[in-house]
């Protein structure tokens, strides 16, 4: 197995799927000769030609709507939104239309579109290049939402998303693109959408997270282990929708304590649903209040280094919340 970065894993997944299946194609702003602003499609136009690597006009609503229409004809488009912050014009076609195609036609029609969205902060992106948008899709029945943390997961899940017959929102945390590296097999493999993974087993506290934050959670868990405070179990959701409630609840029932960590702002974030689930279905097992370490309720991450640092959850903040939970 070779060590790859997340962006390499993403690129390989698309590359291989485009070779495997003629119906797969990519479209979006700058995906052609530029190779994408993050170079996710570098070399694609040379390999697959401009028919299957489409540099679109600067118009996100049409990027999504055209992808959707193409999917009605059996194509498997992978539209890219350049930054999560710019997807708003596309949500009429994504939340309003794509999510309801199958249901609204009683199964006559479906929409195998994988929309790739680089998201998240910690990269000095400021208010309009840092946003977390997962909660909006998490709340939308008819969509699937994937948010991997590692190159291995990114590749296996992106392949599954492309082969899935439903609209899949594929969220790639920008900060993981080059920062996070890991083993990726040479052979074709897929990972199931809808399955969380226990990335680190532990008995005392469950921490549930996804995306970049998984790595900070793992670091915090090591800290607590080194301190002899607690053995923390880290559950990486990997897929946000459908949510793997089984894995989450099983872990909570085992440890009796739950911390949820995400970068997205706290109120109405994905974490609130995890908490609500546990407070309902694992109530009798809970030994402590359910904690959340999340972004604050401000309109995304400011540009100045000081403010961005203040916004971001990090290993220290997580470790402190875990210590508090351990002491409860």
């Amino acid at each position, binding site marked *: 197995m070779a060590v790859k970065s997340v962006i390499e894993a993403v690129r390989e997944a698309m590359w291989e799927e485009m070779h495997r299946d003629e119906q797969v194609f990519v479209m979006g702003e700058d995906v052609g000769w530029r190779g994408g602003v993050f170079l996710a499609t570098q070399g694609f136009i040379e390999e697959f030609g401009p028919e299957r690597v489409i540099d679109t006009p600067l118009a996100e609503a049409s990027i999504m*709507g055209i992808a959707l*229409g193409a999917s009605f004809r*059996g194509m498997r488009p992978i539209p890219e939104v350049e930054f999560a912050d710019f997807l708003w014009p596309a949500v009429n076609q994504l939340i309003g*239309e794509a999510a309801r195609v199958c249901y609204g*036609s009683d*199964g*006559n029609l479906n929409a195998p579109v994988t929309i790739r969205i680089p998201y998240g902060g910690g990269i000095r992106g400021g208010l309009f290049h840092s946003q977390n948008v997962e909660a909006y899709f998490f709340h939308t029945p008819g969509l699937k939402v994937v948010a991997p943390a590692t190159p291995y997961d990114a590749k296996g899940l992106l392949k599954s998303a492309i082969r899935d017959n439903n609209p899949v929102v594929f969220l790639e945390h920008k900060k993981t693109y080059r920062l996070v590296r890991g083993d990726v097999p040479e052979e074709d493999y897929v990972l199931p959408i809808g399955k969380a993974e226990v990335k680190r087993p532990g008995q005392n506290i469950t921490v549930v997270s996804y995306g970049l934050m998984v790595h900070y959670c793992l670091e915090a868990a090591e800290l607590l282990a080194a301190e002899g405070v607690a053995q923390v179990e880290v559950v990486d959701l990997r897929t946000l929708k459908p949510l793997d409630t089984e894995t989450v609840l099983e872990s909570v029932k085992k440890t009796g304590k739950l911390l949820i960590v995400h970068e997205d702002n706290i109120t109405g974030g994905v974490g609130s649903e995890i908490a609500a689930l546990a407070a309902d279905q694992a109530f009798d097992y809970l030994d402590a209040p359910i904690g959340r370490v999340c972004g604050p309720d401000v309109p995304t991450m400011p540009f100045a280094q000081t403010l961005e640092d203040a916004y971001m959850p990090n290993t220290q903040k997580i470790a402190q919340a875990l210590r508090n939970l351990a002491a409860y």
Partner: protein
Amino acid sequence: MTQLTNQTDGHADGIAADISRQLPQGITPEDLVDFYRRMVTIRTIDERIWMMNRQGKVPIAASGQGHEAAQLGSLLAAEKDGNCFFFPYYRDLSIKMGVGLTPTQVMLSFMGKEGDPYSNARQFPLQGADLEHNVIQTSNVVAAQLTQAVGYALACKMQGDDKVIFVYFGDGASSQGETHEAMNFAGVHKLPVIFICENNAYAISVPQRMQMAIGDVANRAEGYGFPGLIVDGLDLLASYEACREAINHARREGPVMLEMKLERLMPHTTDDDDSRYRPKEEIEAVRGRDPVAAFSNFMLEQGYLTEEQQEEIRAQARRAVNEATDAAEAALPPDASNLHNHVYAP
């Protein structure tokens, strides 16, 4: 195909229905009788649906009265061509039924009963997809169909299928950003899409002059690098001819916009009261511009049908609609257990 240059400024008086003429090439008298039959059935069911709304049996309906000739003209051209696909909007009963739905299927749909071919009564009547007849209308969100139609055309092109895609929308829909984006993309990629604007000069209550500062939506086509033409949408044969030409152009050179000037004979939907916003005289005047009456007269005058034959066709339509109504009234809505089906495709 040449571009339209002379603008018409007003609306209701800009068009003279010129119905006395030679049959266009490729059209037989049988075609005319066939389409007359469809038109009459569609008008009959449209009227019945409105009545049933007043009886509390149909929750909502957008009448297509006034739009029949434009829609059926395009359908005739598409059928002659044989490789077309349709993305209609909510006022396109003549497309949705004209392609082959039975009156009973239509009635089931309007009454929200099991057997609605589009969505099995999940959606407003005849929304969803009828793939058997090459029709998709995922929603009634105004203008949402345009980018989808363009995407469908792109897919056909990628798959080597030379299908021509018809997408229909109203004058109001022309204001939506997505309409612009759809046309722009179609222009760049020279996709075989025919954009049919059914301009009835109103978007619910908003008159065209509050919708746009121009007289003809067709004039926007130039800004996307393709031709836009104005068509008398009250005349089935004029609509047919424009669409036939448009199909040829679409396949060879790319998109076309056809602006069908026509009338909304009824209020916006069964929920609407057009006397609030439409002058009484105008409402009366448009009744005189009924495309079904015009086509009836044409068929009589040209001798394709006698009055008796027309009466027989109307009687048949009434019988079919009566039967459909009875069948749909007797049918059940889908069982509640269906609520959770098909949220996701397998």
